[in-house]
């Protein structure tokens, strides 16, 4: 068991992959050490949203994920 990080769209381009497993627990402050600088900066950008198990976080810096959780990093939507 681990935490699954999901990168969507542009963020998947920066990550070089769509998903990645990292060991839990995972907090917002852990991300800079886990992600390349470009990706970490994009994830921290004000238009990037974060969802845990499909629930959007109102304040993404409150991120606190356990093993088995899925954390998605969502760039601005482009619409249908």
């Amino acid at each position, binding site marked *: 068991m681990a935490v699954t990080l999901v990168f969507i769209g542009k963020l998947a381009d920066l990550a070089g992959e769509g998903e990645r497993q990292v060991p839990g627990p995972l907090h917002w402050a852990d991300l800079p050490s886990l992600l390349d600088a470009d990706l970490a900066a994009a994830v921290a950008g004000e238009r990037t949203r974060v969802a845990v198990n499909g629930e959007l976080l109102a304040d993404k810096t409150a991120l606190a994920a356990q093993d088995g959780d899925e954390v998605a990093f969502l760039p601005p*939507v482009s619409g249908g």
Partner: protein
Amino acid sequence: MATTVMLLDAPFVPGRFVEPFTADHPGLGGVCTFVGEVRGDTGVEALELLHYAPLTLPGMEQLAAAAAERFDLMGLLVIHRVGVMQPGEPIVLVSACARHRRGAIDAVDYCMDHLKSNSWFWKREQRGDGWHWIEPRDQDHADLARWQV
């Protein structure tokens, strides 16, 4: 009043959905349908639409429920493509049946405005120089603001 929401990952023929949808609502006054296609007039060779399953379909279902509550409808059908599409392929279909035309037309207008700028899709276009991520046009945000009364 039933709403039907679908994500499809392969090409579809709008009439195959609109005809049975219309037939399922005997007594209707009118049915309004909008079909959006991948435009082929601007150098776009292909378009890819990505979704995130835990958000995209629930978001569309909430939109359909909001439209059903706001307008006087008999039925509402919302279909969206995902995956790689060629110019000319349908990308979205919204069809609304109602006793009176105003509800049907306004529900389609409302759903399209929200789908275009406020739904969980990420889009990129392939042009001669590669793939480009797309953000909503300003016009889409202006269209959406019409409903915030």
